[in-house]
């Protein structure tokens, strides 16, 4: 995906699947594959195959991507070539033998392939959520157009499957706007 911005790509994939549904605040919702969470505020949800995307103000401004139990040989996030439906085969896949370090590496390659420029990952650390020992990290990047974005991610490896909640938003205003909600979503995660 060399000619576009990542979020535009995601927006295109997802919009092809029939728009957004309301996620009500304060109610527990099953994101999919026995992954549950409770948001503080109203969000809008859209999905493309196994990937679920939530946003408050539009995916170009801020978004949460849920990776809900990727299995051996699955893509972390499917990348399409230039906004078409053709899958980009040059993206690495999740393997069941991966450690958290290799998942961070997988995340990095996938995001770069999605168009993130100057991607910097920081503060990779252990983190417990959904009663499971997982990991967290922060990241920053520029879209191809040069808009600066930040992100924060939580991930766990459970029964050889990968669950992740990937939050990102524009540095100005939008990242901060959804950050507390993201923390709440991570804290209220339940994976059965």
């Amino acid at each position, binding site marked *: 995906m*060399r000619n576009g911005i990542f979020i535009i790509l995601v927006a295109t994939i997802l919009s092809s699947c029939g728009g957004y549904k309301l996620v009500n605040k304060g109610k527990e919702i099953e994101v999919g594959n026995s992954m549950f969470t409770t948001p503080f505020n109203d969000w809008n949800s859209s999905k493309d195959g196994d990937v679920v995307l939530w946003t408050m103000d539009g995916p170009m401004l801020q978004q949460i991507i849920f990776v809900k139990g990727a299995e051996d040989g699955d893509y972390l996030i499917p990348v399409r070539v230039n906004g078409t439906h053709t899958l980009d085969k*040059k*993206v*690495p896949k999740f*393997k069941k*033998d991966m*450690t*958290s*370090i*290799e998942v961070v590496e997988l995340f990095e*390659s996938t995001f*770069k*392939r999605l168009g993130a*420029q*100057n991607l910097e990952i*920081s*503060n*990779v*650390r*252990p983190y417990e959520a959904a009663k499971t*020992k997982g*990991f967290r990290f922060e990241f920053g*990047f*520029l*879209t*191809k*157009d*040069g*808009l600066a974005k930040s992100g924060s991610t939580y991930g766990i490896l459970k029964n050889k499957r990968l669950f992740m909640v990937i939050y990102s938003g524009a540095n100005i205003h939008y990242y901060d706007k959804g950050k507390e909600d993201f923390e709440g979503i991570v804290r209220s995660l339940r994976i059965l």
Partner: protein
Amino acid sequence: MRVFLKCGCFCFAAVVLTACQMNKAVYERPLIDNDIILSSESKSSTSESYPYSIASLQPQQRPDVSSLEAGLWMSVEKAEKKSQTAGNRVTDKKLNDYVRSIVCRLAKEYCQDIRIYIMRVPMFNASMYPNGMMHIWTGLLLRARNEAQLATVLGHEIGHYLRRHSLQRFKTYMNTSNSLIFAQMALAVAGAPAVGDIMNIVARGSLAAFSRDHEREADGYGLLLLAKGGYDPFEASKIWKRSIREAKADKKYSSPSIFNSTHPQSEERMKVLNDLAGRVWTDETVTTGLDEYKSVILPLRASFLRDELDQRNFSSTEELLEILIEDGANLSELHFFKGEMYRLRRKKGDLDKALNSYRESLALGNPPSVVHRQIGLALRRQGDAQGAKDSLKKYLELNPDVEDAGVIRQIIEESEE
């Protein structure tokens, strides 16, 4: 319908034939009237025998505001504004100053007309826009061995600018697309399906044929400017030799499609540039600029190599690493990345190869600090739990303050459970 399809194929064969008839003469042209760039009182460079009749740009020349060329420049200026603040622009000052100095050494009085933008794209390319905006991709900086090889490509791009190749291509494209729509309509009326695609190929083919001659002419300029800039002209063909080795290593490499490649075949370029190098050779001392190049590029090379790995064209990357290892600069880093390449590729036997490369990197004495961590990850995948643990511990021991220490400890603990 069949008639139309045949017609399409014939046209495209005809295009190929004309393209193939062009030869060394196009490369040589800049060498014949080689004073166009170098004397300040430039002569008109139009020549009747030459297929393109557009005069070269003069230093600091700007197109007339009512011209098609001005419209082209305006559009590109908008693109240039975006390039200025693009996410993948490399802003490293030392690198920018260095490349700029090479451009000026080559372009002389055109120096101020050309603005460089180094873009983080892991492929072997550079491009010139009609208004003097030049993009240089980091994949080129990774692949050139020395300053002279980089200058070969920069000089080639300057040639495109001087000879206004974009304007010529734009005019052709306008004319081609104009006649195309009527042809397409006629075919659509006749009921021929999918002719749009065929017509597109014809248009693309003829465009490519046109621009391949631009490439040849620009190569000639590159060579000339290289020699006049005091560089060893025999370096010009060497960068093509390297590129050919890499392309051949790619499993998907077959004879390059004439339609997918706007550039002349690398073999032709390599050969002709080598033949012509002697013609521009001067008795003055020439340089390859190897030391200068290394001092600027090597500190940045690891990030270029990481981007290269993300392309996941492992066969060609393997050959590229081989070429760089033959060059011999910072071998420890190169063997480390070779190990990374095998670890990520995951083909049978790759873990052993990865471990060998990591160990080679260690033996050479100057490996990146994560080498023990990567050895640990590779051993863990091989099922050697104890070896993995020892390497991860060694990594923490040597880098006690490292950011990912927490998760590494977690991985060690899990292996003990």
